């Protein structure tokens, strides 16, 4: 009758305080910040809004020896329209994204995703960079950025590099960033004319991580889909693009049966799990529904402009 279960870590959890001992740095420049990260390589964590990191530290899931706050790096807080596209600083708050006219008009799926995240308080603290670097499979800003084919910029003492968002997520909690790198900005190319996009999310309540989230973008010419992009979250170890469904849609007229078929294909590209939020079966079923709905909305927006 003896059991060999592991002891629960409950006694190391105390959310009144941060029950982890760490040293705190608040650099004033990006150079200082990356210097610190290269010095503490692997033993430091970057702190942006803290809405993921602090929670994880309080429950003892993450135990960094050093915390490097980037909140004073104002140069990372911006939304700029440049020639090559829209540039969003990594430190830009979700609330600012939600309130940005440029984003609502030109990148509506990102607006819809930001609006669907947490509550107002969380959105006033949480940043887009934090949402991406936390690399949750359910991160709501990931699917829109994936269908817009965004790229992110990472900086370290070794220089800077660009990473396509589709190559950024490596697994639950794992991104392509090296431990000494800071994500500085997200670049989204302008979408061609006759493109429509949409973001949808199903969760337990209106303030929750997704059971499934989906973004779609479609470019339409004379009633025919030139290209479609579909991204899904919370249905695989990372947010994913449904490349087969996208390939199927290219060149087709978007009738109900085509939509249904695309949704079936997209769902077959998912690898969902069962956890406290939902079941694998449900996630796959609802992926189909959300893909269909997102395609219809995106198509409507593409043809109506």
């Amino acid at each position, binding site marked *: *009758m*003896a*059991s*060999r*279960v*592991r*002891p*629960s*870590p*409950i*006694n*190391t*959890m*105390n*959310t*009144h*305080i941060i*029950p982890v001992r760490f040293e705190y740095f608040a650099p004033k420049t990006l150079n200082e910040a990356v210097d610190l990260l290269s010095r503490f390589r692997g033993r430091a964590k970057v702190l942006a809004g803290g809405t993921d990191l602090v*929670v994880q530290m309080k*429950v003892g899931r993450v135990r960094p020896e050093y915390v490097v706050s980037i909140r004073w790096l104002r140069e990372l807080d911006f939304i700029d329209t440049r020639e090559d596209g829209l540039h969003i600083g990594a430190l830009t708050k979700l609330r600012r994204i939600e309130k940005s006219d440029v984003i609502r008009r030109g990148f509506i799926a990102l607006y819809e995703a930001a609006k669907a995240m947490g*509550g107002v308080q969380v959105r006033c603290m949480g940043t887009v960079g934090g949402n991406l670097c936390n690399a949750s499979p359910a991160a709501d800003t990931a699917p829109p950025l994936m269908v817009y084919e965004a790229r992110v910029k990472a900086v370290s003492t070794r220089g800077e590099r660009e990473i396509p968002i589709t190559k950024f997520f490596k697994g639950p909690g794992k991104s392509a960033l090296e431990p000494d790198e800071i994500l500085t900005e997200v670049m989204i190319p302008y979408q061609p004319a006759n493109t429509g996009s949409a973001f949808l999310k*199903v969760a*337990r*309540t*209106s*303030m*929750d*991580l997704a059971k499934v989230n989906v973004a779609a973008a479609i470019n339409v010419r004379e009633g025919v889909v030139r290209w479609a992009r579909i991204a899904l979250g919370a249905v695989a170890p990372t947010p994913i693009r449904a490349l087969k469904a996208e390939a199927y849609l290219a060149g087709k007229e978007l009738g109900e049966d085509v939509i249904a078929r695309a949704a079936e294909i997209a769902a077959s590209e998912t690898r969902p799990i069962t956890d*406290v939020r*939902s*079941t694998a*079966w*449900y996630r796959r*079923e*609802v992926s189909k*529904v959300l893909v269909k709905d997102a395609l219809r909305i995106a198509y409507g927006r593409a043809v109506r402009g």
Partner: protein
Amino acid sequence: MGVTSRFRFIGKRVPRRDGVLKVTGAAKFAYDIEIPGMLYGRIFKSPYAHAIVDRIDKSEAERLGAVVITYEDVPKVLFNTRLVSVDEATYKDWEVLTKHPKYVGEPIAAVAARSEEVAQRALEALRVEFKEVFKPVLDPFEAMDPAAPKIHRKIVLANRWVDVVNNVGATLEYSEGDVDKAFRDADVVIERRFKTNRRYHLQLEPKVAVCKPEVGGSITVWTTTQSLHNTRILISQVFGIPMSKVNVVKTFLGGAFGSSIHTNLVTLIAVALCLKARRPVKIALTREDDILHDHVSYQMHFRIKAGARRDGRLVAGEFENVMDIGAHQIQAYPLLGTALGWFVSLYKWGSIRYVGKAVYTNKVPTCAFRGYGNPQVTWAVETVIDEVAEELNMDPLDFRLKNYRGLGDIFWGQGPTVKTVIKSDGVPELMRKGAELIGWYRRPKPWEQRGRFRRGIGLARGFHTSGAGGPISGEVIDYTGAILKVNEDGSIDYVTALQDHGGGTLDAHVKIIAEELGVPPEKINVVWSDTFTTVYDVCTHASRGVYVGGEGARRAAAKVKERILEYASRLLPKVVNPEALKMEYDEELDDVVIYVEGMPGEKVTLSEVARTAWQRNWGSISASVSYRATAAPPSFTVYFVEVEVDTETGIVRPVKVVAGADLGTVINPDLAAGQIHGGFAQGWSMAVLEDVVYDPESGEPLNKGLITDYKVPMAPDLPALDNFTVIFASTYEPTGPFGAKGIGEAAANPVAAAVANAIANALGIRFYELPITPEKVLEAIKERRG
């Protein structure tokens, strides 16, 4: 609401007395108590669901400067954390700290240090070695298997040991009439099995206790409790300190919903630490401690069988109730009787048979949660009632009206020992009005609906007792007390131990006193009191705060009034009988005028009377009352809920709610409506969302305790205010203060049932397991489509 209009203060909309205090943060909760030299405590909790501790090395923790206590440092007595039942009905199986933890999170040791940080480090420095770790028993039916590991071997009832057989902590059987014959004679018989969810209370304020040693061996305690006096008695009993040396002080309470009818273990642990440290100690549970390891609702498994005749009369009811109570009893045994009471009092079943079992499992101990089993029973019964009506081809509304227990019938307030004859009943009125407002007779027929989104309207009715009083002293303790003083300037001090959980109960008392005396509420001071200075009140639970506590306050006011009139008559020499005097508030004078009707000259003000009584040495105008209600009448509620089901995602959305409530005279309309809105939110969540789930191997809650892992609905998930109508019945309860009954629990009880019936109306599918999640709905829809 015609009846209320003859009142001067009752039924009027006024701002809450504590509103400004709470909004500005001036209100002091137990967590806000800071005492110089105070230590902060943390509890070492069992990381296993069922284990035996071998030894604890506390040397390193003590080196950090912490005071450490283990199961070796606490009194070796078994007790029950709840004292509401009489001793002969109280099963005792709790320890302050244990060597034999029976659920993940059961306290084994505790530390106190000069800061929460040091306390946490000391906690992590404790070396606790386990001798044995057992496989947890998590399912009540598996627990009853003779081969299952024994969670308890012996427990105490009153003061004798009883053996626990097959993990069954308590049983109750009951029958009336020839049930088998009644079923044979029935034309329609429906039998169903149900499983309810395990819900966390999510009261705003996690549990906190502060204990301070006083000179001379006394202690003072501030804590989150629904009962100051029972907390005091329990501390006295467990630690062997005379009650005159234990003072429990009232603080603001951030909700409870039943989670502190009993004294939370944190309080006893804080006392134990304080006694050892001889310093003030505060322990505040984190939200995670509170969710994971402190309290959840009773999870109940039912089998219900109902029989009816063609003419629409119920003739037989059978009820089997297996309760998964977790690792300890709080009020499991009394609930076996009360659950039967809820069942019996919903409908006139004819013959009945009942078997109830309270079964131990290696999970967090369960306790009352807004309705004390009533929402669970009502959900199951109201599902079966709908099905019987359908089978009989009767309108479910008519079927209910024909069979429910109403005016003149006998009502079991809290099980077989608390019975009352129903004297006020707003059910017919609420049914009629509600049906009209929701469009009951135009409700959809499930088989006629097409398309992705389907609408459904559900009806459920229910009730809750107002208190647990009655003419006969049964197994439940229920009486209250009030002290009222007219001060020397005519203002009033009201002293009560009764706790206001945040619902505005004491606001209602003030209005009741105001009504009785004619003194405006602003001149009545609610004294921030403690157990040293108040008389006994059992607990704020069972929706008794207004009905019992309010009547206690009214009686104190009536006594004081007698004295006021007697003193007034000394100042009005022409008056021969003080009873001829009337009291009324005069706005111009801003005083209460005591006068003889029709004789404008014969009057004196209350402040003159109060001042004169003082100046002329007549003595104080005061009263102390201890009051036991002679009844425990039902407050009825009727919910009509319209939902929309997305048949592709299984998501159910509330569209419209018409909530009818019969609480007798409505004392605070806004706060009463607030109870109903809150009751709906919790009931909705019970119906479609909440459940604590456990890892089958380790017995650890999978919700992890994080608020992100245990969800309740947010405002956007609930109906817009425009789509939520509250109607009050125009009833008057003759035994209540100015005709009032309770509302807190009745507001929640039938909600899950109404939601479930609405889903059934939309889809033509019934669900017998809560919560009815989108996952289950979608699965059922797909299954039916084949």
